[in-house]
């Protein structure tokens, strides 16, 4: 089995008496688009910085593409877009990419061709010779994204990549992530825009108080359904009996709500109700949104 793109084992970071990351244990397989979610102050950015060697862990360890974190070689095939991308504003867009490309050990015509391709990809081809201080917020974010993609990395960290972007910019980021996935690049995505995460990520981890509290695959099969029923009669015995099909059975506003772990539960439930002689007037099921799960896990 191929080595994971990213591994973290019991990573911890204390800043004085404050613990920013308590116990980060994660494994992200190669080629996966992985969402790293949590409320503000949960330790997401510190976690990313530890993985990238910017922050030294108090304890624990990890690997990026098979190399121990903190080592220079671990970053050889890694791209990074920080949450607040800052750069030398006196540079032009093309110059910024050329400079970062050289730090990656790139050069010559292949670097120039790569820069042109990336500028085109982030729709900044026309603005390539413009000074970065003249860029709008969205343009700065897009040039930062291009910087993270230099040299076709195998693993890309995107910390709030849609920050400051308009809907078209967000769409562009989504397309870029899809392209990366198609190319087999692993993406580690930290975003507050759960709708973005929902459509781009294969799997997510929820972080709370510096610890991963839940990991979840975003495939349809593994997500709960929220079911709503309207019956001709409701009694405590019926509610108790429905618990066999799911959990969190409750009566609200004359309707019964419960959560089931798969679609196959729905016909089972309706057959059982019919067998009991209970009239079923309404049955609706919707997949729980990532926001619902987020609120439940970290709320």
């Amino acid at each position, binding site marked *: 089995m191929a080595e994971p793109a990213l591994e973290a084992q019991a990573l911890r970071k204390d800043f004085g008496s404050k613990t920013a990351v308590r116990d980060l244990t994660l494994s992200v397989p190669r080629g996966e688009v992985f969402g790293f979610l949590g409320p503000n102050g949960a330790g997401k950015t510190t976690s990313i910085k530890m993985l990238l060697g910017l*922050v*030294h862990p108090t304890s624990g360890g990890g690997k990026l593409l098979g190399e121990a974190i903190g080592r220079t070689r671990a*970053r050889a095939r890694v791209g*990074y877009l920080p949450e607040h991308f*800052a750069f030398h504003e006196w540079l032009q867009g093309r110059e910024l990419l050329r400079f970062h490309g*050289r730090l990656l050990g790139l050069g010559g015509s292949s670097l120039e061709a790569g820069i042109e391709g990336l500028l085109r990809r982030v729709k900044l081809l026309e603005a390539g010779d413009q000074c970065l201080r003249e860029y709008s917020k969205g343009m700065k974010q897009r040039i930062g994204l291009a910087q993270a993609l230099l040299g076709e990395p195998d693993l890309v960290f995107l910390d709030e990549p849609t920050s400051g972007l308009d809907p078209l910019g967000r769409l562009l980021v989504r397309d870029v992530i899809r392209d990366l996935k198609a190319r087999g690049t692993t993406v580690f995505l930290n975003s507050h825009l759960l709708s973005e995460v929902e459509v781009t990520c294969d799997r997510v981890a929820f972080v709370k108080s510096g610890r991963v509290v839940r990991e979840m695959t975003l495939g349809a099969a593994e997500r709960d359904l929220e079911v709503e029923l309207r019956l001709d009669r409701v009694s405590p015995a019926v509610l108790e009996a429905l618990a066999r099909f799911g959990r969190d059975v409750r009566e609200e506003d004359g309707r019964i709500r419960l959560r089931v772990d798969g679609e196959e539960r729905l016909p089972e439930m309706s057959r059982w109700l019919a067998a009991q002689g209970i009239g079923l007037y309404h049955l609706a099921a919707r997949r729980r949104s990532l926001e619902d799960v987020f609120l439940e896990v970290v709320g």
Partner: protein
Amino acid sequence: MRAVLTIAHLTLAEARRRRILAAALLLGGAFVLLFGVGFHFIARDIRTHGSPAQQRFMMSFVVMAALYASNFLIVMTSVLVTVDTLAGEIGSGVIETLCTKPVPRWAVALGKWLGCWTILALYATLLCGGVLLVARLVGGYTPPNAALGLPLLLLEGTVLLTLALLGGTRLSTLANGVTVFGLYGLAFVGGWMEQIGTLASNTTARYIGIGASLLVPSESLWQLASHHMQPPIVRDMGIGPFSPVSVPSPAMVGWAVGYVLVTLAVALRLFRTRDL
């Protein structure tokens, strides 16, 4: 090494693009020009008065005054060019994308040191070289041991530049500037205490001064340079404000070189071990 040169190149490009280099070179040129015009008229007067020895003393005095001003400007520039190079980029977050590239952190810091040092060397060469050239062309005077004195002035700037890089690994830009100028002030006062202590035969004051020079060997390098760049008769008689009574030991040069190397090594280590 390639990464060091890339960062050094960026540091130079930044100085050029942000007009730091233009301001330094333009005003440095203006300084040399002003000195040249003033020296032209002063030299014309000097040539009509006194014996050749007196004329030589006067020429030396004026050139040393210009070199003293150059020395001060070199000190200021070495600190101002370097004070923000790490501290500013750490504060703004610019450093994050640099340090996540497959480049060791020491290479980033060393590249910045090299870039700043190149600016300092250009500036020092312009000022001191300009002063010497003007003195030669206008007054027909060249201070003795200029080939020894000028590298000492560059070494003095290098000491402060390296201290500013060291401070930048842990302090904010302003705190770094205040600290390095404060250290320069200690060395300056220490240097004068050493001179006055020697003149007044006060061993305690002299030793305090020497201690300050060991702590920051900038002023003692200037004194050593000024001692060597004056005519032997002037320096031996201790005439004028540029002739140190207590001449720093030549070992101070070795101390300063070692000081720069150790300070630079500590700076690279502190930068490597800090969180960004």
